[in-house]
């Protein structure tokens, strides 16, 4: 399967241009979508999830015109919104039952098998008969994951899925996704670069509604090899000086000192040491390039 997004644009009534002529093709397997807050990720995801129409542009899922044949898309869709709530007094089991029916799983034995599997997989089995409103944030997020995977979806859209999960649950979820993701399209939007590096054979960075880069994490890292340099400084003054002199990719606080990473084809000297490029460097570099342009 392939999802083809062509020249997608969207301007909100308040004048915000969420998407600017964005084109992207996504095939089977996990696809990471990186971008800062307000980049247009959620707009793009909602548009693919049939919840919103663009002003112009087209989206095709194989032969399905996503913007016109919404119900066909919904039948194969598993969607986990960035934020969602639940009906307060329902329990997880009943709610999944209901959603399974809604997703056309008419065979009750299949339905039960799938729901049981998901409840175990998301570690909600024990709490399955508790009202959803009593769930903690992490439990709720896991419920969200379970409902998104109910009907063997062909197109999975997960918006910030790991937010609110503890490290163990996050790993478990990522394993689950990657085990499913080989034969279906999974679009994972996040601003946690780690998620993408671990999971996604392909990725894209968008910002201000535009596509900054698209490719495989490995390839892009290869391109940066030997061009990221690091130095530790102690004062803000030094930091400011470096910022004006070099193409600073990012700074981090390490034990109270600033670690400054710069992009440079050659050794910048001045005490910089070469470091391995991370996906984060790719990300920040792309963002800072856009800012410069």
């Amino acid at each position: 399967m392939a999802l083809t997004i062509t020249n997608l644009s969207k301007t909100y009534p308040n004048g915000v241009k969420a998407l600017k002529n964005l084109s992207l093709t996504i095939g089977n397997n996990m696809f990471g979508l990186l971008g800062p807050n307000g980049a247009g990720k959620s707009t793009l995801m909602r548009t693919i999830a049939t919840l919103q129409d663009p002003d112009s542009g087209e989206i095709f899922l194989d032969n399905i015109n996503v913007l016109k044949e919404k119900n066909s898309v919904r039948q194969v869709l598993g969607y986990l919104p960035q934020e969602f709530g639940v009906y307060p007094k329902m329990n997880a089991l009943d709610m999944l039952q209901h959603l399974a029916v809604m997703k056309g799983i008419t065979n009750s034995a299949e339905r039960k098998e799938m729901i049981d599997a998901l409840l175990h997989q998301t570690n909600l089995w024990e709490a399955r008969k508790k009202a959803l409103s009593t769930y903690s944030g992490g439990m709720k997020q896991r419920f969200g994951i379970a409902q998104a995977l109910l009907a063997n979806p062909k197109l999975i859209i997960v918006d910030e899925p790991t937010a609110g999960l503890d490290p163990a649950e996050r790993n478990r979820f990522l394993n689950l996704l990657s085990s499913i993701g080989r034969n279906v399209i999974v679009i994972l939007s996040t601003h946690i670069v780690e998620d993408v590096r671990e999971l996604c054979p392909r990725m894209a960075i968008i910002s201000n509604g535009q596509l900054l880069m698209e490719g495989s994490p490995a390839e892009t890292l290869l391109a940066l090899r030997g061009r990221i340099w690091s130095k530790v400084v102690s004062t803000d003054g030094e930091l400011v000086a470096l910022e004006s002199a070099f193409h600073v990719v990012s700074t981090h606080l390490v034990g109270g000192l600033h670690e400054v990473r710069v992009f440079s084809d050659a050794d910048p000297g001045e005490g910089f040491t070469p470091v391995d490029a991370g996906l984060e460097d790719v990300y920040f570099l792309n963002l800072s390039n856009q800012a410069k342009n």
Partner: protein
Amino acid sequence: MGMFWEFFSFEIKFRLKSISTYVYFLLWFALSFFSVAAEDFGPVGNGKVLLNGPWATATYYTQFCLFGIIVIAAIFGTSILRDFQRDTYQLLFTKPISKFAYLGGRWAGSFVATVFAFGGMLFGEMAGASAPWADHSRIVSGHLWWYIQPFLSIVVVQIFFLGSLFFCVAALTRKIFIVYLQGVALFMTYIIGITVFFATRSLEHFWSGLLDPVGLLLLDNVSRYWTVVEKNSLLTTWTGVFLLNRLLWMGVGGAALVVVLALFPMSVEALTAVSSGKRASRATQLEQEEVRPKRSLVAAKLPTVHQVFGPGTGWAQLVSLTRVRISNILHEIPFWAIVALLIAFAINNGYFAGRLAGRDVWPVTYLMVQAVEGSAFLFFFIVATLYAAELIWRERDTHFDGIHDALPMREVTDWLSKFLALAFVEIILLIVTMLCGILMQTFQGYYHYELGQYFKELFIVAFPQILTFALFAFFIQTVVSNKFIGHAIVLGLFISQTVLFRYGFENTLYLPGATPPYIYSDMNGYGHFVPALTWSLTYWFAIGGYLGVLSIALALRGSDESWRARFRAASQRMPRLAPALAGMLLVVLGSGGWYYWNGHVRNEYLNSKQRRAAQAEYEINFKKYEKFPQPKLIAVDAQINIYPERRSFDGSAWYLLQNKTGAPIEQIHVTDQRQSVNGVTFDRPFHKVSSSARDLYTIYTLETPLQPGEILKMNFQVAFASHGFKDGNERPELAYNGTFFDSDYFPYIGYNPNVELDDPRRRKEEKLGPLEELASRGDSYYEKVSLFTADSDWISYHTVVSTSRDQVAIAPGDLKKEWTQNGRHYYEYDMGASKLADFFSYLSGRYRLKQDQWKNVKLEIYYVPGHEYNLDDMLQSTKSGLDYYEKNFGPYQFDQFRIIEFPRYREFAQSFPNTVPYSEGMGFIARMKKPDDIDFTYFVTAHELGHQWWGHQLIGGLVQGSNMMSETLAEYSALKVMEKKYGTDQMHKYLKHELDGYLRGRAGEIRKEPPLVLVQREPYVWYQKGGLVMYTLADYIGEDKVNAALKNFLEKYKFANASGGQDVPYPDTREFVAALREQTPADMQYLITDMFESIVLYDNKAVSATVTATADKKFKVTLTVQARKSKADENGQETPMALNDYVDIGVFTGKKDYEQPLYLTKEKITQEKQTFEITVDQMPTRAGIDPYNKLIDRVSDDNIIDVTKP
């Protein structure tokens, strides 16, 4: 103190920032404003009572305070709960704050905020009083104290007492559930309590007033007999019951404060233990589960499932969605609170289904359905309003919309699930309502449950209306951008029906969700109302359906709320929805068109304003002919054919008209108020001069004038045909079973003053002057005119009436012949030589007949099967009435006496010559609950029988006072028949009700109160006062004397003007009073002056009564009594009178209300305070003055007191 101030000012600031405070203020403001500015909005109503006077203000405040309970609970309860809801108590109570500062600050802040909010009442009234359109003849200015005193003594006391109570409960329980429910609970308890109290029909006024925490009973007890003058000048002062009540409840409020101060724990541990124990333990439990299992990190493979999308899935989706939505609603506490309220009201109202106009009846199913449904309807609508909004907004409110909207379902499925869920919960409410009805029928010992009737009314008539309303609400909530704006619009829509109707917009086709009025009757079921009801329900339901389809098209799905996006979505959905939309539109046009054709084209449609305008026009144009010389009607002969199945009749008839004036008559004027007269011809050449709109008034000129004494024959057709159905205002006279129409359908000779409007406000609206008063006694014109029928004196009467084969037709007169011809049933009735007033009726129905005989008089009751309850009672009453009346007044003039049941479209019993139509809604289902209950059926039957003498033998002139010679005398006659059955001692209870009825009647007088002998249109004077004073007179001068006076009077004046020839004066109350005075001893003559010719009130009271044993084993009672007497004018302004009166002084044994007289003598009372020493043989328990309430006394329950040892 500083800390107190801190909490206090925090509370005030919080309330001032909270929008709800202003909402409450505005609510009270609006209620008060409209109560003053729009006279038919508030509880004071029509009349002369000042709209912003002291009594009106007290009434508004008390009634508003009843609803204020819920507001007070909301403000005070939440003030303390806030800390516990937001868990700030942990921060608070770890600090060293004093209990007084914390509780006191919160309480005082809430108190001030509530007083501010309730101040809306005060300012609303003031603003209302200066509204330019208000009725300024009923508004005074410059009496600031009249607003402030009631506000302080009613509203502020209420806030203090209830607020402290709610505050105390909230602080000690700290449960949100209780805080929200306590106000509602008290409100309900009060409503139920007060209605149960009214149910006892108690005339007790002290304890009920004292213990009333809200004040409805208190105010009623204090002011129940206040006249207009008093209502416009007296404040409820802090004296007597009012003072005690206020002190009592302020004391309860104070006690609540002491309790909360003493018992409120000021430590986090103690508070936590109670408040959040459960929640905390639940959270811990879940956290423990979190850490429990150790699981593999490797993801298991998920099973494979198959998705199927087809019609079956659509259905399964609908079912699943609907179930989820129903479960959501059923899991909400507010929903069950509404159900609980519904049950409380239904049970309460159901309790009163067995009471009509203050009298016990069997709680037959139509009454029960009406009672439980009536109170439940509001809740049906509340649930529709609230849950339509919840259902539309649920996904957005819970943020579940992201997942929900991306589900593979059609919009129709989603929408239908909402509609079905709402329909389902409404069905729950309907079933609950029905069960309440059945429960209350059982509770009252009535087991004839007509389940079909419950079903029809609730599920076929009410349910579609609720669904229609729900569909409107769905649509509104779909298109608005905010749920609360939606609620406001829905509420507006709900109110609009009533408001528009009030302002003359009465057309069912544009009043949202309206149906024309209908009445269920045991005789007819829904009868002729069925088509209009069906079509209007269809019409509005289809409109709802149309909006429903639009709602589906416009339903928001996804996150783009812009209208552009929604219209785009709608246009995408439209192709599939268009057929449904077109279908709905067709049904709307079809049913609406059919309704319009029937209600507005086939039948003339007039709203009530237009009908009043027609009445006014008649008066304006033709009143000038009121005294225009006309011949009088002396004979009627009619052939009438009734077609009950078509609700129609036709017939031909003739009148004989005799010129009883001294001059020739050239013109004959005919009023046709029912549009039922045609083809008028005379036995000599004539021509029509003019005719007004709808042939209401037609003038004919005879070519040769009618000479004095000469008789003219007038032939005419009389007919009325029902076509299709009307938009309301169906004629109640015509029914499939139980036709009952009277001489109103026949031509009236000359101007008929009965057509005139009588409501002063309506007259003002039509720019008519005040209703013309009846002429004074001795008026040279009106003394010769009959009180009842100005166009006639007495007539002879013959009729042949036919009806369908399965029905019986009845008219006054003796049945001469009965036969069947052409499949129709014929009856011939003839009065023979007996004369009757021009007042006859035609009835037809499928009756069963109960017969009896009294001497040579045939007694007959025509009734419908199932209404056998009181037949024997009616016959018994008739027989003892005939006994008493023949013996004391004179012979009964007919050979038959008939009682005929008719449908409850009208509720009265009316005496026609030898024929008494009696509504199925009154005597036929009346019920005696206890053996010593007053038997009203017996009484009413005796009263109507009494009219065969007083009204059908004796008729007064059309002047002031004459009405008492029919109604008062019938009432007196019936009282005497009652007395024969129950004995003198029992009459005491009945007299007390007569007294109460009279005093309340005069308190509600909107024109002015006349003395009995000058009564014009005041039923409380001619019934209650008249009956009471006649009874008292008989007690004072002797029953035989009064009856002798009545007999002589009747003898002398009966059938006045019946003999033909020129008219002579009819009797009036001057002759009547003379007849009474003739029998009254000189020292009792004052009674007639006081009771009949004036308005005199007593204030009698037993002050003290002590008993000592005498040497000869007897008992000496020393009784001190107080007596006052005053004379009232027409507005109730009183002036004291000197005492020189005979009043009963009595000593009794037995407990209160069951007194047996040991001594009862009339003593002459000349001083305000007098002491009597009375020796009796038995140990007395009670003693007093005027113990049987024979005299008119505004405080009737202090006349007797317990006898004590000194």
